[in-house]
């Protein structure tokens, strides 16, 4: 909203104040100023001219020659304005003048005719962007030749206030409200609005307020013998620079008074008020009304209309109807100045997409006393602008407000409390200052010597804005100046702060994965991308996902239930495009992870209550801390006021438990299998590549669990995984289209609970990728891992004996799991009573016949003695014999 410094200065003495410098203070005290504009300066050389002759241009159809009387001389210039006519008063710009718009007036020829000067439009003078015609100075009394700044009101500083910063201040939607703030800031008196106007007798029309809940006040008056004409030039320019297009004196008067008081007005052509009757009522379902903008609107019973005896003539508080608007020949009109229910107007305006100057103000909840003031200001303005007009009725005041004015809002507090909340002393902010400041802002203040205050809130602040002592703190704080308040450190007992386990865990895991595992951290959207899922055939079979009612894009309609799909999309992108300038090469790897929440809509299960709590309450401290607060609280419900209780009741009745939002760790590792142009071909991954990406994903999960200080998870091959139904409900989904049915493992706790999985990508999904690549996916349920007991390391003394390492190589069938061989060797050596500390896989080589030649290392050590060569030889023998039992069929 624009604020005019010149306009404010009508009510408050701004002498000696630099409005440009004042803007910073205004921003810190009242509302944020987005932009500041100087208007109508540097026009001293422009003078008033009377057009005394109009002649055609000899060489151009669209140009004419205007002879202008400038008081002491006459001159003839070329003019292209279509509205040029004899007898007009216009601004004349002499030769040699540079206008604020940048136009330089030269003594030149226009199409062969000399033109020593120019007649100017508003745009030429930099007063607005309107260059439809000349600025008409009709009605200006100064003699021809008078410099323009002395003939009309020029020179203004405009503030553009951020509308968002005044949504809670209905009073600031009028210039007078702004003037009140400026007066209070300057400590100077604010002149009252002059509302004296001669009224007539009797009712203007019959008025019935049939929807009193939506229309607390409806004020009406009738004016006769008005004449439609342009408004005075000063008013037109004022409207223009505040962003309103001038139309005619009657319509402009409604707009001017709206800008001044903040109360929108509407004027009906009295001839069109059928039956001489106005009804304020809810619209009938399906009722239609064509508004001033020419649009036919279909209404609902939630909309409020102004109707005459036959039908709707205006959409209350939003826009007038076309059927009753002011016409060029209007001479008698009915004025409406009303107060409407804010929510009703807001909903109608939103539903119909009609945010007008009027609805923007009504939806802020205007003071119901304001229409009485606005109506009188309007009548005064019309009488001034339309000589001969008379008010032929009394002011009719309808609506429930007249009988039952709103209860006065009274705030009882103390000056000491107000000072405490601001953090200032009585020396800094004496009682007298507090009282004076509030009075300047039009609060009624009763003050006793002990500092008790009873503060009556003025109507224009009482609708929504000021209700409690804290609101008064704000009034005082902003006018005192927040910058003058001394800092004070809060005093809180020093205690170690609680940190949510999930936050501690995240720090540990990301450090391990980024620094140890060399992975890149991702933070991705909480929405699934349906287009991407469809292309790669990614789905969780029938597992439901949470839907969004008002999606922002057609692909973003559901919340993610697993982290894998979005991570796969990101990995696919870099595997396809490569890392940077070079084309993607074979062997390019990606290793990424994301720590984030997923959303499982399933209804809670009784046995899962604790886990659900864990998933939702990661921010909560341990129970012991929690118990401390018992006895400190009152029932929270009884503390609320009635409005809020109703709202809460609605929410509680709906009884909607939150869905599970478990924290997960998602990992995707991939390797590109072909480079360059070859890369577009489909490739079946070599086993070594598959083992690598799988190993990387598995390694990441182990690193994460270790970083969390939990015991290692067991890696259980797919065949040994319990049925899906026995898995905890919030664990990652086991049955998905991207899980490879064989090349996957479950991650299982010692208690047998599945908490995650690692899998190669299913070939069907992999083959749909834009790049030939092998990928592995891991997903781990963090809530479940955090619930495990910590693995506390044991401080055993280091062994005294040096151990011996034996490497053993043997051929095994391709389908044999090496871990089974290790287990068998370990059992056999133990059965033979030989000391073996550890047996582990070292490496392998593929054989031509498809079998594998694997090397293991056996670490042998006895606690109490060095091993002798004979023992080592026996261990080797037993091991070799065991490995031989795994030899592929038919091998020598």
């Amino acid at each position: 909203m624009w604020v005019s410094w010149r306009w404010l200065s009508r009510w408050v003495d701004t002498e000696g104040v630099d409005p440009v410098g004042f803007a910073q203070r205004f921003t810190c005290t009242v509302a944020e100023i987005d932009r500041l504009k100087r208007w109508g300066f540097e026009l001293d050389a422009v003078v008033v001219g009377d057009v005394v002759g109009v002649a055609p241009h000899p060489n151009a159809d669209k140009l004419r020659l205007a002879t202008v009387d400038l008081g002491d001389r006459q001159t003839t210039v070329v003019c292209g304005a279509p509205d040029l006519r004899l007898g007009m008063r216009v601004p004349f710009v002499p030769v040699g003048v540079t206008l604020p718009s940048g136009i330089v007036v030269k003594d030149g020829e226009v199409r062969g005719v000399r033109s020593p000067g120019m007649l100017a439009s508003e745009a030429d003078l930099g007063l607005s962007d309107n260059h439809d015609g000349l600025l008409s100075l009709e009605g200006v009394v100064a003699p021809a030749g008078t410099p323009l700044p002395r003939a009309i009101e020029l020179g203004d500083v405009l503030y553009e206030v951020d509308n968002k910063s005044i949504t809670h201040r209905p009073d600031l939607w009028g210039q007078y409200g702004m003037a009140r703030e400026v007066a209070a800031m300057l400590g100077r008196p604010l002149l009252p609005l002059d509302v004296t106007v001669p009224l007539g007798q009797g009712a203007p029309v019959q008025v019935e307020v049939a929807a009193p809940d939506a229309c607390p006040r409806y004020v009406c008056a009738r004016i006769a013998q008005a004449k439609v004409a342009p408004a005075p030039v000063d008013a037109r320019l004022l409207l223009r620079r505040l962003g309103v297009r001038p139309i005619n004196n009657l319509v402009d008067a409604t707009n001017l008074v709206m800008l001044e008081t903040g109360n929108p007005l509407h004027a009906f052509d009295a001839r069109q008020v059928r039956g001489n009757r106005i009804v304020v009522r809810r619209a009938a379902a399906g009722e239609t009304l064509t508004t001033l903008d020419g649009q036919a609107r279909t209404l609902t019973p939630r909309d409020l209309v102004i109707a005459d005896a036959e039908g709707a003539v205006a959409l209350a508080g939003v826009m007038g109807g076309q059927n009753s608007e002011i016409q060029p020949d209007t001479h008698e009109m009915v004025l409406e100045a009303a107060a409407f229910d804010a929510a009703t107007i807001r909903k109608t305006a939103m539903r119909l997409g009609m945010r007008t100057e009027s609805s923007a103000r009504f939806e802020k909840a205007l003071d119901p006393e304001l229409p009485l003031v606005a109506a009188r200001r309007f009548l005064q303005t019309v009488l001034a602008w339309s000589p001969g007009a008379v008010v032929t009725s009394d002011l009719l005041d309808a609506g429930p407000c007249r009988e039952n004015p709103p209860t006065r809002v009274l705030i009882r507090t103390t000056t000491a409390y107000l000072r405490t909340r601001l953090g200032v002393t009585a020396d800094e902010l004496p009682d007298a200052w507090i009282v004076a400041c509030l009075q300047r802002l039009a609060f009624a203040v009763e003050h006793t010597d002990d500092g008790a205050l009873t503060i009556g809130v003025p109507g224009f602040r009482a609708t929504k804005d000021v209700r409690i002592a804290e609101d008064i703190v704000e009034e005082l704080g902003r006018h005192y100046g927040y910058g003058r308040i001394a800092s004070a450190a809060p005093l809180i007992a020093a205690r170690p702060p609680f940190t949510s386990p999930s936050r501690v865990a995240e720090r540990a895991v990301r450090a391990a994965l980024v620094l140890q595992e060399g992975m890149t951290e991702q933070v991705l959207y909480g929405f699934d991308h349906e287009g991407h899922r469809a292309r790669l055939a990614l789905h969780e079979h029938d597992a439901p996902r949470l839907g969004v009612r008002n999606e922002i894009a057609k692909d973003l309609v559901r919340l993610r239930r697993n982290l894998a799909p979005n991570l796969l999309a990101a990995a696919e992108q870099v595997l396809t495009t490569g890392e940077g300038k070079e084309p993607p090469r074979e062997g390019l790897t990606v290793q990424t992870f994301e720590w984030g929440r997923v959303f499982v809509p399933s209804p809670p299960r009784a046995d899962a209550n604790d886990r659900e709590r864990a998933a939702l309450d990661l921010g909560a401290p341990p129970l012991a801390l929690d118990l401390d607060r018992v006895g400190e609280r009152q029932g929270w419900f009884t503390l609320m006021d009635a409005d809020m209780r109703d709202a809460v009741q609605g929410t509680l009745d709906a009884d909607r438990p939150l869905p599970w939002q478990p924290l997960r760790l998602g990992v995707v590792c991939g390797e590109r299998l072909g480079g360059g142009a070859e890369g577009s071909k489909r490739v079946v991954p070599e086993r070594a590549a598959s083992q690598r990406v799988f190993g990387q994903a598995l390694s990441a999960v182990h690193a994460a669990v270790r970083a969390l200080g939990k015991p290692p998870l067991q890696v259980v091959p797919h065949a040994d995984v319990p049925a899906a139904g026995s898995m905890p409900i919030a664990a990652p989904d086991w049955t998905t289209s991207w899980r490879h049915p064989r090349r996957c493992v479950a991650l299982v706790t010692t208690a047998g609970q599945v908490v995650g999985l690692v899998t190669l990508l299913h070939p069907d999904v992999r083959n749909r990728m834009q790049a030939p690549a092998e990928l592995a996916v891991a997903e781990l349920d963090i809530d479940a891992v955090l619930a495990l007991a910590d693995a506390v390391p044991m401080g055993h003394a280091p062994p005294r004996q040096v151990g011996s390492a034996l490497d053993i190589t043997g051929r095994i069938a391709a389908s044999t799991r090496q871990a089974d061989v290790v287990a068998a060797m370990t059992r056999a050596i133990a059965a033979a009573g030989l000391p073996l500390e550890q047996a582990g896989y070292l490496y392998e080589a593929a054989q031509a016949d498809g079998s594998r030649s694997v090397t293991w290392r056996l670490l042998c050590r006895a606690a109490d003695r060095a091993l002798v060569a004979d023992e080592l030889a026996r261990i080797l023998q037993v091991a070799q014999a065991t490995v031989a039992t795994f030899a592929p069929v038919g091998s020598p």
Partner: protein
Amino acid sequence: MDSAPWQADIEAARQHWLAATAGCAQLTALRSVQVECLGKNGAVTALVRRIAEVPPADKRAYGQATAALKAACEAAVAARHAELEAAEVQAELDDDTFDCTIPPQAALSGRPRPTGHLHPLCRVQHEVEAVFSSMGFAVLDYPEVESEFNNFEALNIPSWHPAREMQDTFWLDNGLLLRTHTSSGQVRALHTFKPPFRAVFAGKVFRYESTDASHEHTFHQLEGLLVDRVVSVGHLLDSMRTLLSAILRRQVEVRLRPGYFPFVEPGFELDIQCQLCGGAGCSACKHSGWLELLPCGLVHPQVLRAGGLDPAQWQGWAFGLGLSRLAMMRYAIGDVRLLLGGDLRFLSQF
């Protein structure tokens, strides 16, 4: 009528190539058959071209016959291709030579370890959390799907309140919503902790808003909340100055100006002195010397009540810090969409 000699040729070609196609056991073999048959110099392609040598009377019939042959071969290749692909996938699925028990280190041996990268948002979030933690603030973590009550009502934003429009909300089909601000955690914290307390909680927030270089439908915030017996504007100023100096790693001058947020009273916009010009005024701060950084204020009594505290006994301050914006400031990121876009080429800079 006797059949023309070319008819036998076509029939022979048909039988030969359909058999050859069916005989392919590998996709590579099928590809070479495809080239030999339908390629630029393929046998069927050559037959098609031989129309020039056919007598004019036969041209029409010859043309039709070779077109049918070509179509049949193409269809056979395509069908076989699909079969082989399916067989290949099936073979992969049946293959049991993958050993999931090989230790990861062994599977990866010989590969250089890549360099990892921290996400810029998480870097900033952890830095800020560490600052708060060091000053005695609890660091919390709250859900992203929230109830209307926690996101709006408890924050003094009842359903008729115009602020609900300023917060364009994603609604879920279960009647819940995606939190529009981290302030939704305020009432959770109030209910959980014994006052006095102080806490921060950060995370994703969601707005129904079309995206551009400076707008995202998902971004990150950090909420701060302090509750004590007496909390004044002076305390807020002190806390903000201290915390922001620690976060921005330099002495920060702050100013408060009126701002409207239903859950604080008084409410403020907090500006920091422009770091480029030191307050003298430059283009970055629109010549005001100040940059708008965060909204804050004294906790509204209604919010304390919703959190189960008696406002006659307890007071508080709260603020909301835009982590996405902070990350963009710190790392000179020009487009907010890069943060959650997942592009690894972007992330590898951090």
